[in-house]
């Protein structure tokens, strides 16, 4: 029995530039109790499709086709497309419920969570305050919120990110819907938390009997949770298959390309070995470009609040031409270390030598000449370029600042060279940043960072805001340039697979402390620290069978905790 039946769905939006069709002729069915993953990159129309199931589209959307939603007991059927007003509200939450990407924004900050759960109940029937509260406590317990009797009166800001997502799922489960639509439910979360939320979603299916429509761009998540997969590309479904078939024998070229672009653990070992063979003898004895000893960085607490220790007693070194991958979850201090090396954050204690300059107590004046030898690639492609300068002007900036060129125009030949090196057409130099896509901007960012041929490059999550296929190309480019130019690099990422791909050595940070360091083979092959083990086990891999094994392992690890 299908709970959702989408037929010939077409969704278009009225814009100034005419009508833009976001979804073309999508036909899709969700069976009761199954997990259907809709996979695609930005702009593929997957979110729009999923939202149409609940009629949650903006007023400018024009929807054609049918979206038939059945109630959980199968007694009732509605085509959502023509529904509006009270009829539509009746279906929402009751027959299908939604879990959003960002748990922190999908909870109302000024109401207790119990009230918010009760709101959904109240919209679909008569509950006394007491009943609603009891129901809220019950559902909170079932999603694994400890001490629900007490916590039901708490406000969202009193919960951690993972717990917030549990509460959002609880809200969805409260009305016992036939299908839960989960829109990137784990994208905003750290990997270790992601694993737990995925586990909870699995229980939504197993214990609550809800079907799940999982919208995601993460193939690892798909492999972990999905029974069936629909791949969307530019508003169309290009392939539908059960999860094993899709991963083992993708038919559509786009699916193949997408799967090939996903970084996998273990791919890096070969590359690392190859790089190692090309190194000159005595390489290990060269003076390191970066050497941290008992590095400690503290953000002073304001207004009598305690200080926040971002980095605590970390020691590592980066030798010339070496790529150190720094891995950690949010709050681990990885970005702070990168910023400290670039002189953007003060060192509180210990020593950090960058290209021979001690950063503890560094004076900007003395460090400025050193800056010439450091490049930096920022995480967010949207904000890393001055919106008022053209790309060429921005890339010329380091050349002009360090007097290699008189003005941006004089620097243009070199800029063109650089753009070419990062595989951007020269003409892109005349464009403004907003006229480039995220991937193009990150490449331009790389060009700017390399303009002065630095000895050290710091890349802070350079690909985390990009789609998988774009990420693959940027990473490839990075590796290529590193090979050619031979700079040392600190590559910061939350994604183990990405780091593994590029780094000679990997350092794992956990709450400001460096818990493990070694080559990719050592850290990923035989992790010693429990956190590394947990981190590694939490990372879903894009292979359903392998992932099932890993999940068992993860369960065991968790049980041992």
């Amino acid at each position, binding site marked *: 029995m299908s709970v959702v039946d989408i037929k010939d769905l077409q969704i278009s939006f009225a814009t100034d530039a005419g009508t833009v069709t976001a979804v073309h002729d999508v036909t899709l069915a969700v069976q009761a109790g199954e997990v259907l993953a809709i996979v695609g990159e930005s702009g593929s129309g997957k979110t729009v499709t999923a939202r149409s199931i609940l009629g949650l589209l903006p007023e400018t959307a024009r929807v054609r086709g049918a979206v038939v939603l059945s109630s959980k007991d199968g007694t009732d059927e509605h085509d959502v497309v023509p529904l509006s007003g009270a009829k539509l*509200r009746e279906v*929402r939450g009751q027959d299908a419920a939604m879990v*959003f990407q960002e748990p922190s*924004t999908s909870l109302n900050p000024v109401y207790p969570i119990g009230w918010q759960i009760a709101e959904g109940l109240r919209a679909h029937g008569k509950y006394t305050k007491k009943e609603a509260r009891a129901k809220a406590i019950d559902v909170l317990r079932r999603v694994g919120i400890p001490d629900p009797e007490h916590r039901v009166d708490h406000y969202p800001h*009193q*919960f951690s990110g993972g717990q917030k997502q549990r509460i959002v799922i609880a809200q969805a489960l409260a*009305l016992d819907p036939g299908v839960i639509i989960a829109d990137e439910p784990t994208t905003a979360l750290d990997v270790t938390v992601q694993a737990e939320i995925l586990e909870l979603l699995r229980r939504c299916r197993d214990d609550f009997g809800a079907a799940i429509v999982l919208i995601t761009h993460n193939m690892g998540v798909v492999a972990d949770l999905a029974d069936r997969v629909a791949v969307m590309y530019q508003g169309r479904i290009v392939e539908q298959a059960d999860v094993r078939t899709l991963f083992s024998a993708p038919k559509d070229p786009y699916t193949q390309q997408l799967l090939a672009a996903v970084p996998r653990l273990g791919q890096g070992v070969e590359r690392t070995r190859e790089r190692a063979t090309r190194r000159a003898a005595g390489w290990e004895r060269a003076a390191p470009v970066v050497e941290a000893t008992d590095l400690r960085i503290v953000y002073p607490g304001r*207004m009598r609040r305690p200080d926040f220790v971002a980095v605590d007693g970390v020691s590592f070194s980066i030798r010339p031409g070496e790529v150190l991958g720094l891995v950690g979850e*949010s709050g681990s201090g*990885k970005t702070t270390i990168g910023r400290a090396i670039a002189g953007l954050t003060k060192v509180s204690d210990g020593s950090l030598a960058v290209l021979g300059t001690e950063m503890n107590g560094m004076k900007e004046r003395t460090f400025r000449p050193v800056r010439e030898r450091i490049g930096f690639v920022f995480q967010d492609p949207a904000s890393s370029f001055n919106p008022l300068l053209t790309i060429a002007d921005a890339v010329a900036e380091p050349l002009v600042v360090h007097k290699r060129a008189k003005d941006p125009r004089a620097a243009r030949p070199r800029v063109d060279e650089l753009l070419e090196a990062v595989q951007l057409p020269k003409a892109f130099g005349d464009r403004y940043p907003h006229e480039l896509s995220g991937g193009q901007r990150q490449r331009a960012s790389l060009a700017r960072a390399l303009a002065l041929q630095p000895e050290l490059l710091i890349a802070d999550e350079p690909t985390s805001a990009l789609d998988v296929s774009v990420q693959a190309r940027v990473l490839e480019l990075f590796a290529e340039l590193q090979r050619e130019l031979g700079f040392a690099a600190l590559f910061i990422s939350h994604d183990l697979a990405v780091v593994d791909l590029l780094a000679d050595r990997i350092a794992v940070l956990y709450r400001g402390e460096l818990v493990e360091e070694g080559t990719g083979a050592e850290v990923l092959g035989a992790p010693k620290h429990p956190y590394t083990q947990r981190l590694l086990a939490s990372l879903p891999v894009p292979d359903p069978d392998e992932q099932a094994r890993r999940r068992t392992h993860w369960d065991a690890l968790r049980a041992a905790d």
Partner: protein
Amino acid sequence: MTTTTTERTGSSADPAGTPDPAPRLRRKGSGGLGSYLLVRFLLIFPTIFILVTTVFFLMRATGDPITAALGGRLPADQLAERVREAGYDRPLFTQYLEYLGNLVQGDFGTTLSDRRPVLEVLTTFGIATLELTVYALIVAFIVGIPLGMLAAYSRDRFPDAVLRVFAILCYATPVFFTGLLLKLVFASGLGWLPVAGRASTGTEIELQFLENPTGFYLIDAFQTGDWDVISDVLEHAVLPALALGLLTAGIFLRLVRTNMIGTLGTGYVEAARSRGVAESRLLRKHAYRPALIPIITVIGLQIAILLVGAVLTETTFEWKGLGFQLAEYLQARDFVAVQGIVVLLAVIVAVTNFIVDIIAALIDPRVRY
């Protein structure tokens, strides 16, 4: 937005998700509230100090108040005598220190024209201004907030367009012109309402004879229990309250609209919608309460506008309050009185801002817990 920021604030520094961060957050929160209140309270003093100092030196930059008031009307030697008597011939800084000392003791000076302590002027006329402000705020709340919600709800459609133009007209029109128009139409034109004043002469006299008059005419009118008196007071209040109230209502309308549109577009309203919560309830409950916090903060900043509006409205309607009095003293070139009233008004603004900030902070559960 970026992970960088999150990492730096360390607020989401709890990667595992399972450990209960609540006790830590709660402690941090309440400590934060305590010190916030303290800092915010202490901030009143430099604010007032800066204002007092600025006003003092500005006012004295051109000379002493006696010369300003009487210059040209008295022979030079008499004038000099008066100036010396009042101590205005001493070094400016000495006068400044004395002035500060007096202020601390609650002495805001004595008016030149009618020789009354400024503080007394405040207590006599302040209550009238308070009455006008209360009426205006009632009008503003009744008109501004529901209409703002309506505008946000019907965003970009016809009612919204009309309401926005209405709001802009409300605060684009100088309050005294609104007053003049209202007078033209409803007082001298249609003759429905009185032209000016807080009450007719008969009523004023009747109110004078109360045992303990508050000065708040409406309350006093109720004390008399005489329906004619009450309606007389109310009739006089309608036009000034509307003039000042509409100005404020326009600001409230815009404020509520903007913030409601903000919260109506948030994830949590969308999430509530996805669970079938009715639109009207989304508006009244889910979107309104979070919008309230910034609204209240900004309303605090409107106090200054309200006071200026009151000054102008009182002049327009001969409403004998602080503003009316201020205009009188200005005409009389009594700058001691002007300085006193201005400083007092500034203190009122600073204190009200503080109170409003505290209210806003207390409403926010993120601060409370």
